[in-house]
């Protein structure tokens, strides 16, 4: 099967991007250098073509009840214009995917799942919607998503669209949605709109000075902030509690997976924890983690923080903050310790 391309594919190539297969999409992994792209976002402003992400619209009188039932958050608490990060769980409390829920109106919501999970989420929503008066529409194929991230992002957004957005708030401007969201921990926004407008927005923002950023830097940026990567930090058998994201759970409402989480809460369980390397080295997913010479875990994510210039990683562990551990990297044991995330 050939890879899917966004309308910006030729732009990415013209900019010298190295393209890779990501969830069946041909996407830019880097344009110039992961390190310099990473720093551009932390210090200036970067633009990401993330049109592979999903856009699923839920409409109808029971939208609030339905989305409260299928996510970890109680949507009764959302006001129009609110965005909320939450998890979609199965009955075992295991994460199917993480998503942001956009409250467009009391009876209209938008979910933005990860590219590789769109079909799974659509099926899951459909299969659990029998008792609710809602319609579920997957418009992922006709919507783009651009992320504009970095301290200069608000200035560029103002210049380009004469608007501003607060963190986790959205605005609707004609045919696009602008939200104060992202995956980098910086100021900025994401713009979602019909695919035929993608080129217009990309070109305008790049002309104004936004620096194109590939998926490579997107990964190091999110890891420095301890954000989860779907399919890597959770792969279908980890719960929201285990990922250490209990703050996305509103316990005071009924939702799929709640019972399992309530019982897990009573017991000990490993939590996704940060590892900061004290020795020089680069961490990689899959590296073994040792405590007192016993292998206790494997890294789900690992890299080098371009800002801290130290190896950082995530692993499911049941150790206190500051515990000394070692990580086996190419046959050598490197010293590190357990730290709170975000790393930065």
């Amino acid at each position, binding site marked *: 099967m050939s890879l899917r391309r966004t309308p910006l594919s030729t732009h990415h190539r013209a900019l010298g991007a190295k393209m890779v297969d990501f969830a069946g999409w041909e996407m830019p992994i880097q344009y110039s250098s992961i390190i310099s792209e990473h720093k551009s976002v932390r210090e200036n402003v970067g633009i990401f073509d993330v049109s592979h992400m999903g856009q699923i619209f839920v409409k109808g009188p029971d939208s609030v009840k339905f989305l409260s039932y299928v996510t970890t958050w109680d949507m009764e608490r959302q006001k129009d214009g609110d965005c909320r990060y939450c998890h979609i769980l199965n009955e075992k409390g295991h994460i199917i995917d993480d998503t942001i829920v956009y409250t467009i109106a009391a009876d209209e919501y938008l979910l933005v799942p990860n590219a590789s999970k769109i079909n799974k989420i659509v099926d899951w929503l459909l299969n659990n919607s029998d008792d609710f008066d809602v319609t579920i529409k997957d418009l992922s194929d006709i919507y783009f998503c651009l992320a504009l991230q970095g301290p200069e992002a608000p200035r560029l957004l103002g210049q380009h669209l004469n608007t501003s957005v607060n963190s986790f708030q959205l605005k609707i401007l004609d045919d696009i949605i602008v939200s104060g969201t992202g995956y980098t921990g910086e100021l900025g926004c994401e713009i979602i709109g019909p695919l035929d407008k993608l080129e217009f927005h990309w070109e305008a923002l790049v002309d104004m000075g936004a620096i194109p950023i590939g998926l490579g830097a997107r990964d190091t940026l999110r890891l420095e902030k301890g954000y989860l990567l779907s399919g890597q930090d959770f792969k279908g058998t980890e719960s929201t509690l285990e990922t250490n994201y209990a703050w996305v759970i509103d316990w005071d409402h009924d939702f799929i997976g709640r019972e399992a989480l309530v019982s897990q809460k009573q017991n000990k369980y490993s939590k996704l924890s940060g590892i900061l390397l004290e020795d020089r080295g*680069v961490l990689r997913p899959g590296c073994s983690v040792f405590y007192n010479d016993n292998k206790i875990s494997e890294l789900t994510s690992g890299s080098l923080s371009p800002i801290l*210039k130290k190896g950082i990683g995530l692993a499911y562990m049941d150790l206190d903050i500051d515990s000394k551990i070692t990580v086996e990297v190419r046959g050598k044991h490197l010293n590190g310790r357990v730290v709170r995330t975000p790393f930065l």
Partner: protein
Amino acid sequence: MSEVPDNLSYTKDHEWMLVKDDGKVRIGITDHAQDALSDVVFVELPEIGSKFSEGDAMAVAESVKAASDIYAPVSGEIVEVNDKLEESPELINESPYDFGWMVVMIPDNKLNNTLDSKSYRELID
């Protein structure tokens, strides 16, 4: 276009060698190799005095995305390593043929199986 200086010898594995007047060989990776690796963020060098046979993995250059073995282009003993790469691995990207050199070896034999600049250029084109 990658830079391929004429005064160096090359391997298929994208290492360069400079044979010095005293017969020692200075070794690094080529411009093409550093470009393919992208940002080098960590370099593991061999110990001085260690010996390698041609084709042995003797060092590692790591980018954000991947670790790449660097192979001994010739059999011999390591007599110098570029300590600056510990603090500044990016020298490999910035100056692959000069400040980014990796090791100096005393070769057991004369260099063979090496490529000249013209052949190496053909290999990477």
